């Protein structure tokens, strides 16, 4: 079965036997975009978070067939070294990662939050950023999220 979608601004088609295959597997194993991580495999930890039509989704629990015709953004498409997304920039400034494995998921979840709520309160962060970090970098992440909100021009988020 052929499934077509845009990923990180580029059109992409994949031939896949089972259309219920998780988008995460397609992104990592077929498209070789390894930034999105496999964590728990049951939509709990958030390491696999990416964006579909601007919404944060757990790609381990998102059948690739649902991506047909949609815009998908992974951590690779959020920004780069020369032009980092404000969330990536804030993450660097606050030296957030420890082991780093879960961080792409947190960054994608935060970018999705700021796109809808440019100035989140601590309560908003608690409610919306529910990913899991085994290194417990939560305090630095909270600071970085507030910093990213300061850095985020609304146009940047909307154009993402």
């Amino acid at each position: 079965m052929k499934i077509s979608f845009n990923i990180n601004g580029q059109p992409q088609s994949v031939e896949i036997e089972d259309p219920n295959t998780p988008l995460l597997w397609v992104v990592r194993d077929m498209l070789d975009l390894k930034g999105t991580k496999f964590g728990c495999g049951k939509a709990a930890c958030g390491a696999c978070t990416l964006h579909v039509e601007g919404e944060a989704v757990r790609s381990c629990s998102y059948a690739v067939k649902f991506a047909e015709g949609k815009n998908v953004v992974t951590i690779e498409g959020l920004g780069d070294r020369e032009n980092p997304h404000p969330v990536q920039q804030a993450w660097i400034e606050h030296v957030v990662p420890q082991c780093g494995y879960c961080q792409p998921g947190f960054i994608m979840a935060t970018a999705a939050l700021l796109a809808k709520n440019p100035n989140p309160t601590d309560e908003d962060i608690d409610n919306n950023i529910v990913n899991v970090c085994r290194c417990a970098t939560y305090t630095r992440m909270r600071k970085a999220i507030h910093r990213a909100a300061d850095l985020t021009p609304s146009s940047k988020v909307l154009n993402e």
Partner: protein
Amino acid sequence: MKKLRLLYIIPVILFATILLATDFNEYAEENNNRTFTRQTAESTEYFDQMMSALTHPRCLNCHPSDNKPKQGIEAHPHYFGVERGKDDHGFTATNCNTCHQEENNDFSGVPGAPHWGLAPASMNWEGLSKTEIATSMMDKSRNGGKTPKEILKHLTEDPLVLWAWNPGIDAAGNPREKPPISKEAYIAAVKGWFEAGAVIPQ
């Protein structure tokens, strides 16, 4: 003489009228009771069958009374502090569709169905009796302004309601428990209850 006759006739007519009225009232009452009893006897079985499904955790978990969705057959609070949010679909960026899609996902064990989300807060059923649940269900001020016909359609055709009979598997691969009666028996009971007048046993 005429006056004397009237004096006899008027009380007789009055007495007869009272007797007739009393008989009619008794008949009407009896008749009403008979109708009510017949409807109750007929619909109570349907009602109980319908409610055996509607009070099952597969249904009640999304009708919380504390704005916190429940999970599992033991109805524990939804993991990750998930709550109703402003539109019954969770918080701004982390909402129901962050994890739940239009179908069950057998890879992750995450359940899914169209318009996955909580029932409106006015339809909080958790902790209510069967009678209270049915009363709220039929109350237009609480059921989103739905007519009985629309409620019947919701109960028997809405894919999210009927998901209870296709609940998929959990993260460990174990099938989720279904309501105690089959989908077909549930739909027949709901239709039967409505056809019998949707009488709510008190």
